[in-house]
C-alpha cells in the first residue's frame, strides 16, 4: 500500500510539473491527463469509505469537478480563466457541503465567493489586463520544480498517514452510528447568536476595519494620481 501511494503521488507531482505554464502546450496536455488520472484513481480508492450508492456517485462527481477546477486555476495561463475555474471549484464545494448537510454554509459560500469575491477578482483582472495576448509573466512559472516538490510533500504528509490503513479504520469507526439532522439552518443560527455572539460582533468589527482600510488605500491612490497629473 505505501508503495502504491508513493508511486501515485510522484506521478501526480510529475503531472503538475508538466501542466504548470511554461512547458509548452503538448507537455501541458500530457501533464493535465496525468493529473486527471491521479484524481480519478484517488477518488476510486476513497469511495469504499462512503456510505450509500447515491453518496458515492455524488462525491465522485463533485470531488472530480472540484479538483479539475482547482488544477486549472493554477495551471491556466490566462488569469480570467483561472478566476472562472475557481467559480467551478466553489460550485463543486457547495455541492460537497450540501452532501454533508451543511446547506447554510453551502449557500453562504456560493453567494459570498462565487457572487461577491470572485466577481471582484474578475473586475480587477479585467481592469489590469485588457489585451488579448498572454502576458509573459503568466506564461511561465517561478521555480516550478521546488514549488511542486514542496506542495506534494505537504500533501503526502497530510494524507499519507490517513491512507496507510490503520488510521482509516480508526476514523471510520465512530461515524457508523446514527446521525442527527444537521441540515437545518435553525440550530446553526441559534449557536451563532448564543454561544458565538461575541465572535459575530468581532466579525462585524473586522469587516468594518477592512472596509476602512480599503477606503484609505483608495484615497491614497487618488492623492498619488493628483500628484502625478
Amino acid at each position, binding site marked *: 500500500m505505501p508503495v502504491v501511494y508513493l508511486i501515485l503521488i510522484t506521478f501526480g507531482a510529475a503531472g503538475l510539473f508538466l501542466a504548470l505554464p511554461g512547458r509548452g502546450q503538448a507537455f501541458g496536455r500530457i501533464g493535465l491527463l496525468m493529473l486527471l488520472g491521479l484524481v480519478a484513481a484517488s477518488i476510486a480508492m476513497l469511495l469504499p469509505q462512503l456510505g450509500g450508492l447515491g453518496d458515492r456517485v455524488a462525491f465522485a462527481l463533485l470531488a472530480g469537478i472540484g479538483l479539475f477546477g482547482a488544477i486549472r486555476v493554477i495551471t491556466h495561463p490566462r488569469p480570467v480563466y483561472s478566476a472562472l475555474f475557481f467559480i467551478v471549484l466553489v460550485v463543486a464545494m457547495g455541492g460537497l457541503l450540501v452532501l454533508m448537510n451543511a446547506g447554510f454554509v453551502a449557500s453562504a459560500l456560493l453567494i459570498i465567493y462565487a457572487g461577491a469575491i470572485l466577481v471582484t477578482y474578475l473586475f480587477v483582472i479585467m481592469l489590469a489586463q485588457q489585451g488579448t495576448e498572454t502576458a509573459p509573466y503568466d506564461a511561465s512559472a*517561478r521555480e516550478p520544480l521546488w514549488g511542486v516538490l514542496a506542495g506534494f510533500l505537504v500533501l503526502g504528509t497530510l494524507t499519507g498517514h490517513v491512507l496507510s490503513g490503520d488510521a482509516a479504520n480508526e476514523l471510520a469507526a465512530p461515524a457508523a452510528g446514527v446521525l442527527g439532522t444537521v441540515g437545518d439552518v435553525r440550530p446553526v443560527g441559534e449557536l451563532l447568536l448564543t454561544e458565538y455572539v461575541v465572535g459575530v460582533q468581532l466579525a462585524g468589527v473586522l469587516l468594518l476595519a477592512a472596509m476602512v482600510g480599503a477606503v484609505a488605500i483608495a484615497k491614497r491612490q487618488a492623492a498619488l494620481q493628483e500628484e502625478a497629473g
Partner: protein
Amino acid sequence: MLLPYLCFGAALFALGLVGFVTRRNLIIIFLCTEMMFQGIVINLVAFGRYPLAGNAPILDGQVFALFLLVVAAAEAALALALVVLLFRHRPSLDANVWAELKER
C-alpha cells in the same frame, strides 16, 4: 465517511500552496490563498459532520466555516486594493517587478 472529505481538503490546500509558490501573477497568488481557505472550510465542516468522539454531529464546525468566510472577504477586499495600488505604481501584475522589496 470522514476520510474522503479530509483528503479533498488536503488536495485543495496543497494545490493552493503550489500555485501560491509558482505563479507570478499577483492576482493568481491571492486566488491561491482563497483556494487554501476552501480546503480548510471542507475540513471544518467534515469534522463537525463526522466527529471523532460520539455520534452526534457538532455544529461548531459550520460556525467556524462562516467566520472563515468573513475573514476571506475582508482579506480579498484589502488584497485587491493593495494590488490595484501596486498596479498604479508600475503597470504590471508580475510579482518579480517588486523583487527589490525582498532582503538580499
